[in-house]
């Protein structure tokens, strides 16, 4: 596989710096209930209404592993081509904070549920494989709200105990484009698997970003800084760009980078030091004695493997091989599971080439213009398929199809009905077309003369006139054929 690197270098004086990026993505497990309790996980509920005694850490309350969350993590691991660890351990990460009711977070430290894996990025320069270091399960904390009461901090524990997958990449990313592609691919895989909805606005996907720089050609890594909790791809890119440039400046001025945790300030577009390595928390990790080591049987893992749906990479391969799509087209169509489902539904009864063009062209333009997700698409796959068939069998021209498409977008109607109601059916009767042509020739004797004297360009004029008098409905192919004969 090609391992093309898109160049992202920072130049200062006569030096060129390469940026090395690793991501720790926190993906909320798609699950009705929490990792260790049966409390619901619905987003946007009234504060403190989705909290069990376990989530609020009442005395004597004990965590019980939610098997569904384990399955989700294993499925994700399989989707990342990763090693599934048959034995993993839940540890306690101890620290005090108002929205951490237990005084510790249950996480996985030395023995995560999923080990090394990989992700294929689809870049403009080709494909690139990025390594996955590990995936582990952990509890989310609650939320401290500092701006609702002038005197007090309020705590909402709805999120407390929700299952998160922390997916750690290797430091394999080298550019903002790769970061974008990585997040999108990871999100896509998890959405295909149904293990995370990937909704960044709702905080289902957040990331800590590790950034370091090194002079181009240097082998070892530079000292890295970790930027905490960035919740959109755009902010990740802004934070990385700022941070990489900051590090280069420090080095160019003869300084050294301190390993530290930094925060990204969206308003000021800068990263700020949060705590240095010396101030790093001592989390006093130790195995949670309330939970036995998690042991997975081969059968458990194999049953999940058997039920893994076709993932983007395989789907892309199939689309290219079976439908003769270009890699570019295939990428676009598989990147989102909903799009790929839509595509496959349309082509079930319609021409593949035409469908591909209409989906990646007109439909995407429409969605883009109206700022809609594919799931909010006003045109059903069935209707688009019908429209394409109307074009294919010559009932309507491509041009007419575009106006029908517009009506479909506004009214959601069946294209067949639109065509009939508006009388947009294509004129394909040669005798009728001949009549129209005869009229145009009679009406334009001068032009006919000019054409016959060698002004070939005028042919288009006649076609246009015929189409005009037909109200755009004449079959352009037939018009061409007959017109050529008539003007001989």
């Amino acid at each position: 596989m090609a391992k093309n690197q898109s160049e992202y270098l920072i130049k200062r004086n006569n030096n060129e710096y390469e940026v090395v990026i690793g991501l720790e993505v926190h993906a909320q497990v798609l699950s009705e209930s929490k990792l260790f309790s049966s409390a619901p996980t619905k987003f946007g509920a009234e504060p403190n209404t989705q909290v069990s005694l376990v989530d609020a850490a009442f005395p004597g309350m004990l965590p019980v592993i939610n098997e569904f969350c384990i399955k989700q993590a294993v499925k994700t691991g399989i989707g990342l081509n990763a090693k599934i660890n048959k034995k993993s351990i839940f540890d306690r990460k101890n620290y005090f904070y108002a929205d951490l009711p237990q005084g510790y977070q249950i996480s996985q430290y030395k023995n995560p549920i999923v080990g090394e894996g990989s992700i294929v990025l689809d870049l403009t320069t080709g494909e690139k494989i990025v390594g996955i270091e590990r995936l582990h399960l952990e509890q989310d904390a609650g939320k401290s709200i500092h701006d609702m009461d002038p005197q007090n901090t309020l705590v909402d524990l709805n999120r407390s105990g929700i299952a998160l997958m922390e997916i750690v990449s290797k430091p394999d990313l080298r550019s903002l484009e790769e970061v974008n592609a990585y997040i999108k691919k990871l999100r896509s895989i998890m959405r295909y698997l149904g293990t995370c909805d990937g909704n960044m606005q709702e905080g289902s996907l957040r990331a800590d970003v590790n950034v370091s720089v090194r002079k181009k050609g240097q082998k070892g890594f530079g000292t890295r800084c970790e930027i905490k909790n960035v919740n959109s791809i755009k902010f990740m890119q802004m934070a990385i760009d700022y941070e990489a440039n900051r590090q280069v400046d420090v080095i160019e001025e003869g300084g050294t980078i301190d390993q530290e945790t930094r925060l990204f300030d969206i308003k000021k577009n800068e990263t700020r030091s949060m705590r240095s390595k010396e101030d790093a928390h001592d989390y006093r990790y130790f195995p949670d004695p309330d939970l036995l080591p998690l042991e997975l049987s081969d059968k458990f893992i194999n049953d999940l493997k058997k039920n893994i749906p076709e993932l983007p990479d395989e789907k892309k391969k199939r689309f290219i091989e079976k439908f003769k799509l270009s890699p570019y087209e295939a990428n676009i169509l598989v990147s989102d599971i909903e799009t790929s489902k839509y595509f496959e539904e349309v082509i079930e009864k319609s021409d593949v080439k035409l469908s591909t063009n209409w989906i990646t062209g007109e439909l995407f333009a429409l969605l883009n213009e109206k700022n809609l997700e594919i799931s909010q698409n006003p045109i059903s796959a069935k209707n688009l398929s019908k429209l394409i068939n109307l074009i294919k069998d010559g009932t309507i021209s491509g041009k007419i199809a575009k106006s029908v498409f517009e009506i479909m977008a506004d009214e959601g109607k069946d294209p067949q009905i639109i065509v009939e109601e508006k009388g947009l059916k294509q004129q394909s009767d040669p005798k009728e077309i001949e009549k129209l042509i005869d009229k145009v020739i009679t009406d334009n004797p001068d032009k006919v003369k000019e054409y016959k004297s060698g002004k070939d360009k005028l042919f288009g004029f006649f076609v246009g006139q015929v189409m005009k008098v037909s109200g755009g409905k004449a079959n352009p192919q037939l018009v061409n054929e007959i017109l050529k004969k008539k003007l001989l």
Partner: protein
Amino acid sequence: MPDIIDLTLVELVDKIRKKKISSKEVTAAYVDRSQKSKKLNTYVTEDFEIALKKADNFDKNPNYEKKLPGIPIAVKDLFCTKNLRTTAGSKILGNFIPTYESTVTENLWNAGSILLGKLNCDEFAMGSSNETSFFGNVQNPVGENLVPGGSSGGSASALAAKLTPTTIGTDTGGSIRQPASFTGTVGLKPTYGSCSRYGIVAFASSLDQAGPMTRDVKDCSLLLEVMSSYDRKDSTSVDFKRGNYLKELNNSIKGKKIGIPKEYRVEGMPKEIEDLWQKGINIIKEAGAEIVNISLPNTKYALPAYYIVAPAEASSNLARYDGVKYGFRSKGENLIDMYEKTRSEGFGNEVKRRIMIGTYVLSSGYYDAYYLKAQKVRKLIKNDFDEVYKKVDAILTPSTPSSAFKIGEKTNDPVSMYLNDIFTVPINLAGLPAISIPAGIDSKGYPLGLQIIGKAFEEQNILNIAYSIEKEINFKNKINDWWM
């Protein structure tokens, strides 16, 4: 007919079933005696009025099929009881009223019994004398100004003083067996995983286990039967076939092999304890069991390992008492200040000591040297037992290295206090069942106990051995009601 309060649990159940006495009569008798015994300071929270009402209700609509029909029971204040204050002997939970019930107490009420009240204990079950309780020390009915042992000191004292027909405790390093030994009563720590930990205020999760505290071995068998259940709400609960411990109780120990570990002959152990042990050995031998000398070579490392593992877990388990969600809160300038003041004022010295030890041994840089090493030692101790259990069916040892001591005698010497648990701690580390039964008195007239340690999940076996020894020894607790 003897006084109600002199009847054992099994006798009471029989009399109630035969309608010779009512639940109300039994409950009233215990309420009355409890009210006259405040000097012992056994109760942290009384629930007498409601108990009497419940007893009345039972009598009006009795269900004699239940295992504990209309039996009033006071329980250690470490078990969360719905709508009744649960303090764990701490100021920090001084105002805490759970909205839920622990599985073990739920099992008791489902079996027909009635809650009398909550019994004093060492703060968060950390102590061997009941002196660390925020609610004051407990008197041992055996003698004035004697500690009842700990941490289930209130339970042991109330049981011995006949303020409850039977009771339950928890045992992390000896907290059932040592107070049982100090008060001349029976106490059993079941195999780890036998009784659910759900709803019990946690001290050290990998060691904590609830168990019965009773007047005799029969009562112990019945109560264990009721308490023990598989519980999905506790991930460490074990789904094994639980016996009908009372029904299957017998004293045939003929042919059984009983191990006598040489490492339990510790330096400085009083001769009286040594003699008591020998007495136990003789009884078993006469009953037809075979005595086997065994070695548990890692015993000497048990106490240090315990005092790393238990505080480590405790330091984390007690982090939730931070003044944010429930319990005591002290005002502070900011979050950190509030934490510091709440925890400084809310916890007593022994709890703070253990939180500090635990935090230290888990710190990065020390983790491997302390916590990890202690876990390895724990494994070695368990291996010791696995090894000897290839040769013997059970092990006989003294329960404690001394009898009850005076209140205040060891308060300022934590290490000497910790040494009290020297015979009990290894059993918790190995997760095994063990029972302490009263076996005699020392020169001061204070009771002494013998401990029988069994194989995992073989509670029936140690109950049977205990039953045989009990019959031979025929121990009678001499309590003169000095506090009344």
